[in-house]
């Protein structure tokens, strides 16, 4: 299937499947995103439920990262990026006039594609968020937060003897779990993950997938991934993006067994290059 064909299929497209859910944490309505003149997301509407893992999939350049980054206003750091439409977090518009991005990003944390530990010790990496948000009243409390977060991220046993060694000295998989621990440490409600395993080997990937499954108990998670197996393993719902359009949203099982839209089917059966 080539681009002209698929373009026809999504002209004036309305998302198929079940983009809305009952127990809503975040709801995006009619979101358009522009980089300068170029539109990257077209009229996307999507609910993300409480304690659910939603996978965002689609071909490279279709706008997955862009959409994900609108959810905690990370796009604000890009000068030329403009966002239209509403995104409600617990029914409050995060693009409202008086919303401050600082507490917002404490509530909606983010883990990136490439592990990006700060050039600080393991301890200070995890303590960074709690410190800037003043979450700990004492050193003891901070120690507790750090330990709890590292345990949650499944890293504690590997690093408990070298908390003061530099975080950049860990292996790639450990670094990524450190970044997850760092995100968990500020006790967010939602965690956004942009291809968190793409720089990792299968074993490290498996560990992180396991972790995502555990984290679901407490957090709402949106994860961008290029691996369909990963989407199938960790998510409850899957959203398929194509050329900036949100093509289909359905329960993961359904997307991978009986996709509704032709483009989704073409993608999951590997008919896009």
């Amino acid at each position, binding site marked *: 299937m080539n681009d002209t064909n698929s373009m026809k299929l999504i002209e004036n497209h309305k998302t198929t499947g079940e983009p809305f859910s009952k127990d809503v944490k975040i709801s995006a309505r009619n979101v358009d995103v522009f980089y300068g003149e170029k539109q990257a997301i077209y009229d996307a509407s999507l609910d993300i439920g409480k304690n659910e893992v939603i996978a965002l999939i689609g071909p490279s350049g279709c706008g997955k990262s862009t959409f994900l980054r609108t959810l*905690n206003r990370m796009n604000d750091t890009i000068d030329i990026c403009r966002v239209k439409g509403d995104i409600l977090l617990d029914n409050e518009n995060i693009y409202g006039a008086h919303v401050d991005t600082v507490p917002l990003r404490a509530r909606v944390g983010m883990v990136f594609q490439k592990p990006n530990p*700060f050039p600080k010790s393991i301890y200070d990496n995890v303590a960074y968020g709690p410190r800037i948000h003043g979450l700990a009243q004492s050193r003891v409390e901070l120690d507790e937060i750090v330990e709890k977060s590292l345990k949650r991220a499944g890293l504690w046993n590997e690093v408990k003897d070298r908390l003061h060694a530099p975080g950049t000295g860990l292996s790639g998989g450990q670094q990524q779990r450190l970044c997850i621990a760092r995100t968990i440490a500020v006790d967010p409600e939602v965690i956004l993950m942009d291809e968190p395993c793409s720089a990792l080997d299968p074993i490290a990937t498996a560990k992180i997938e396991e972790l995502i499954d555990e984290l679901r108990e407490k957090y709402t998670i949106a994860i961008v991934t290029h691996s369909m197996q990963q989407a199938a393993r960790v998510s409850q719902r899957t959203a398929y993006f194509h050329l900036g359009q949100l093509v289909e949203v359905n329960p993961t099982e359904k997307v991978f067994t009986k996709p509704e839209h032709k483009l989704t089917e073409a993608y999951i059966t590997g008919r896009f290059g």
Partner: protein
Amino acid sequence: MNFSSLLIIVLIVLAGAYFLGRNRARAISHQGMRMHSLPNQYGTLMALWTGVPALILLVAWQLLETPIINHLLIAKLPAAMQAAEPAIIELTISKVYNLAASAGINADPSLTPAVEHLIALNERTLLLNSGMALSLCLICLVVTYKRISPNLRARVEMEKIVNALLLASSGVAVLTTIGILASVLLEAWMFFQIVNPLDFLFGTSWSPQVALRADQAGSSGSFGAVPLFAGTVLISLIAMIIAVPIGLMSAIYLSEYASSNVRKYAKPALEVLAGIPTVVYGFFAALTVAPLIRTLGADLGLDVSSESALAAGLVMGIMIIPFVSSLSDDVINAVPQSLRDGSFGLGATKNETIRQVVIPAALPGIVGAIMLAVSRAIGETMIVAMAAGLAANLTANPLDSVTTVTVQIVTLLVGDQEFDSPKTLAAFALGLVLFLTTLILNFVALKIVQKYREQYD
């Protein structure tokens, strides 16, 4: 035959060698043999073997020519002169050179045989050495041509020769440095024969006047360099107090806050500061800043000398700002965006991100930038010479006039000097100290910058 026509001929021979080698290799492979290397590699090898030995010969010739000719000339001098002291002989020889150049006019008949010999030699040597170089070229060409065969590993051999050439070029740079260092060391050594190194390094009185006549009064010369070191440190310190905060903050502004439009104009504008000749800074310091400080000081009831460390330090600080800001800007920009994103993603403000993530990540590079700026400040001469004065006062008061190591080196060497007087030699001792200090600073700075590079590349 002159040098440029020799060069052209050699180039033609080299090109010829290249094509000969290539065609020969092609011809062999056309006969169905498998050659070890590609035809053009045989060609290059031919050219290299033809050119390099001749080049070495010419260089060696240039180095050896003068001593050999001198030797031959001495043999032609009258016997009485040959027995004279080496210094006298040297003088006579240079006289011979002058006479040969001003052909015909000969004031001293006893030198005539030598002069005529030199003229004859001069005519012959150029012919001789170009002849030798060319025949060497041709011999090598023939030998290499004969060697071309399917088994000749031309590519490997070529790589080796190129390798050696590159090594030789970098050797030139290193040898020059060593040569300069050696000459400074030697002169400094001679100085320390006359003046005790401890007196030089720790003495507090600097007045390098040396008596011209033995009976002259009151100027035996004293070479305690501490006032100079102190002056250098004082002025550099003032300069850094100005340059580091301003440079760093403008770097942070430029790399983190400024819109791309502002950066487009502000960065080059800042870098213009680095392009202003130091003499201009010097008179700015001497004619504008120094009087200003003096008037201000007078208004406050302070006693400011008309040439003050403060004026020189302030202006030097301004001069150094672009060093700090430009280098720091580069290292701050080199901090990966992913680190900033990580910090923003945790809800940190821009300020927190810069203070706690960006600056620590860039710190080694920033320290390196600052150290380079310091070594620049220590080596700066013009501003200090014009604005801080020449008086070797030992003081920590920035309102006094002081002098620095570089300025004293200049004053010691300006004008006619005897080359073996302690006054002249003192300049080399100061130069040595300066050289070692900046060398160490640069070395440390580069190490730090390197360490930083390894982390993010």
